[in-house]
């Protein structure tokens, strides 16, 4: 995590005292926090490019926390959520967790519980960002392959030896070998196994698009 930018914890709670005290608590464990009084402020001012998580009060002045969660899911915003509430009930927490929230805490909560949830949420967000970054990088590498090289790569991935690949694309074994070297070099893959793993990531990303 050291090479990625410092994570930030966003807090949306209309109570200034809660924001203030949470800020000090998070600072005491070396976490940066930004507080907002409403979800509107959060959407306008929060920097979504940083690894982050959102601590959200269920009872908010403009729209409820659960409603906002639905809004985030609908707009493909993957920021991990931690709910805090003054009067939570079980159906409410079940709904929140089912919709993907990391944790649902009832005020007053133990500081360690919140910190654990935040660590977990940030780790999840960081992992997601790293994977996203890796996929973009792989896609950029894949873009540099010529159509012929992509064809050879597809046949390589299906586990065929050079001779058969040559027969399939109507080229000699030595030409296939040359293409193969190019694919491995451009994709920066050290072994066939590594290439397979890269293709896996790429295919997942392709499906997602």
């Amino acid at each position, binding site marked *: 995590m050291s090479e990625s930018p410092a994570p930030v914890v966003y807090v949306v709670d209309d*109570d200034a005292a809660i924001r203030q*005290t949470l800020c000090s608590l998070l600072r005491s464990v070396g976490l940066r926090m930004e507080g907002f009084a409403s979800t509107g402020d959060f959407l306008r001012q929060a920097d979504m490019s940083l690894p982050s998580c959102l601590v959200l009060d269920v009872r908010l002045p403009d729209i409820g926390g659960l409603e906002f969660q639905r809004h985030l899911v609908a707009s493909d915003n993957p920021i991990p959520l931690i709910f*805090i509430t*003054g009067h939570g009930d079980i159906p409410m927490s079940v709904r929140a967790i089912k919709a993907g929230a990391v944790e649902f805490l009832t*005020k*007053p909560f133990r500081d360690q519980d919140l910190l654990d949830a935040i660590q977990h949420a940030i780790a999840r967000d960081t992992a997601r960002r790293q994977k996203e970054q890796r996929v973009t990088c792989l896609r950029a590498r894949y873009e540099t392959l010529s159509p012929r090289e992509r064809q050879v790569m597809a046949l390589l991935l299906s586990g065929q030896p050079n001779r058969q690949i040559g027969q399939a694309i109507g080229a000699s074994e030595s030409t296939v070998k040359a293409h193969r070297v190019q694919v491995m070099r451009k994709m920066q893959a050290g072994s066939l196994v590594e290439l397979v793993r890269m293709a896996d990531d790429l295919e997942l990303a392709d499906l997602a698009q």
Partner: protein
Amino acid sequence: MNMSGYSPQTPFPLRLPGWMRKLIEDGHKSGGMAHFIRYGFALFCILAALFLTMALQQMEIGRPPLFLFNAAIVISAWFGGAGPGAIAVLLSLLGGLYFYTGEFDGSGYQVNSVVILLLLLFTLCALAGRMLGFWRRNAEQALGAKAQQLQQAYDALRAEIAERRRTEQALQEARAELARAARLTAMGELAATIAHEVNQPLAAISNSAGACARWLDADPPNLKEARMLASWIVRDSERAAAVISRVRAMVRNTMPEKAPLGLNRIIHEVLDSLEYDLRKHRVAVALSLDPALPRIMADRLQLQQVFLNIFMNAVEAMAQAEERRLMVRTAATAGAILIEVEDSGGGFEGAGEKLFQPFYTTRPSGMGLGLAICRSIAEHHGGTLTAVRGVRGACFRLTLPRGG
């Protein structure tokens, strides 16, 4: 004789004795036994007329009268029908000849004219009897039809009334359910609001304390930050205390709007509003209300709340009891009005005072505020609310000052 549409329970227009009614009904039937009765009755009438006329003749009051025969023919034709009427005419003719031919003995001409006269007279009587019978039967049939119509209308009306009663009951139940739901929602809302208002500063305090400990544990300890957090803890606990005192003020400051009130009526009103619950839990209510209870100055809503609370507690206390009896008594003493509410729910353990402590509850979902609030309302009215052990359960005793 067409007797369709004539039901046995249809009332007769004329109140005839039972045997006569039976006779008429039999007369209209066409059975061997019925014929026998009808003709027998005609014969009996004529014989009766004959013997009576003979008796009159013995009394030497002049010429023997014919009116008894006339009457016998009319009755036979009326109740018996055409056949018995004709028989009666013939028999009467013989009877008449027996009495009258004696006077005109030996003169065939006179006998002939007497026979013709008597025949004429008796036939007229028989016709009159028949007419009467027809008229009566028609009237009866018309009346029967009318009665049937009335019966139908009556049945329809009864069905409608039953239907309306069912609808009304359903409506009442729905209304009671709604009122209950509204009561529960209002209490739930209030509880949620208070919980939120109190939990907010509590969460801030908890955060501050946690952060404070961490800053102190740091190497080197950040005393400045810790001191700031400590001051926030003080600030937020004051804020929590302010919420509590605001709630207390809310309860206290709703100054009772006092107006002259009849307590008996309020008790009735509250019991009415609980009718559904009482019925559902099969609670019998025994009222012993002093009709001469003086009116007192009190807040209607607050007193309703007190009674509602005590009654609901009683109903819930009796949920497991075999006998469920709620007794409400009111009485006026020299300086105060006494209201006692006793249930048969087995009562409470320990001191009655405990029941009035805030947050004391025997129910898992209860807040334990009901009786505490009731007592404070009683005290605001210058009265008292206590609990003692009754015969089979708890007895709540509310006193309110006269003219208070």
